[in-house]
C-alpha cells in the first residue's frame, strides 16, 4: 500500500507534476506516493520529474484511460 495517493485525473500539464511535488512533501523519506492521472503527457513528464529530483519511479502503468505512477520518495 502506498503511503499517499494523489488523484490527478482530469488535470492537464503542469498540474499533475505540481501536485505530485506538493504531496511528496507529505510522504516520509523512503515512503511511496501513488499518482493517478489521465494526461498522456504525464508518462514522460513523471519520468523526467523523478530523474531530475532524485525520486524513484518504481512503477508506471496504464489501466484503461488512467495512468498510474508509484514514486518512492528518495529525493
Amino acid at each position: 500500500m502506498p503511503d499517499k495517493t494523489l488523484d490527478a485525473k482530469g488535470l492537464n500539464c503542469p498540474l499533475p507534476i505540481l501536485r505530485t511535488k506538493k504531496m511528496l512533501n507529505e510522504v516520509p523519506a523512503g515512503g511511496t506516493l501513488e499518482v493517478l492521472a489521465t494526461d498522456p503527457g504525464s508518462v514522460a513528464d513523471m519520468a523526467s520529474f523523478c530523474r531530475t529530483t532524485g525520486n524513484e519511479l518504481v512503477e508506471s502503468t496504464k489501466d484503461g484511460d488512467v495512468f498510474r505512477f508509484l514514486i518512492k520518495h528518495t529525493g
Partner: protein
Amino acid sequence: MTEGNGTVTNGAPNQKSMTIIVTKGTLDWAYPPFILATTAAAMGVNTTMFFTFYGLPLLLKKLDLKISPLGNPAMKMPMMGMHMAMPNWVATIPGVDSGATGMMKNMIKKKGVASIDELRDMALEAEVKMIACQMTMDLFEYKEEDMIEGMTLGGAATYLEQALKSDVNLFV
C-alpha cells in the same frame, strides 16, 4: 532568495537555476513562462522571472487577460470537429476579442488546464522570484501598489546578474 534591494542570490551552490524574460501579457502567451517557472520550481530549480513591456501587467493584482485572433492565422479553434482560423476582417469586428477570450477560458476550464491566477499563486508559493522592470513601470505609469506582493523591482543589470550564473535563460 530575493533581498529587499532587488538583488538576487542563489540557493545551494550546486542547485540549478533558470531565468525567464516575460514580454507578452495576453492570455495565451502568459502560459509558457508560468508553466515552465512552476514546473522548474517543482523540480528543485531556482527560478527567476523578469517581467518587462507587455509582460509587466501579469504582475497586476487583478488580472484581466485577453486574446485576439487578429493577425494570428495560427490560432485555430476546434469547432464542429474541425479547426477554424478567423479571417482578419472578422477579427476586427467589435466584441470578437472578448468572444474569443470567453471561448478560450471555457476550453481552459474544460480541459483541466490551470488558470494563470492559479499558476501565478503556485509560482509565488514555490518561491519563484518575480522582478518587475522599473523602466516599464515608469513608461506605462504602473503603480507599485497595484502590483502583487512578493515581486521586486529591478532593471537590466538585476536580471543579467542572475542570468549570468543560471543554467537556463529563456525569452518568451
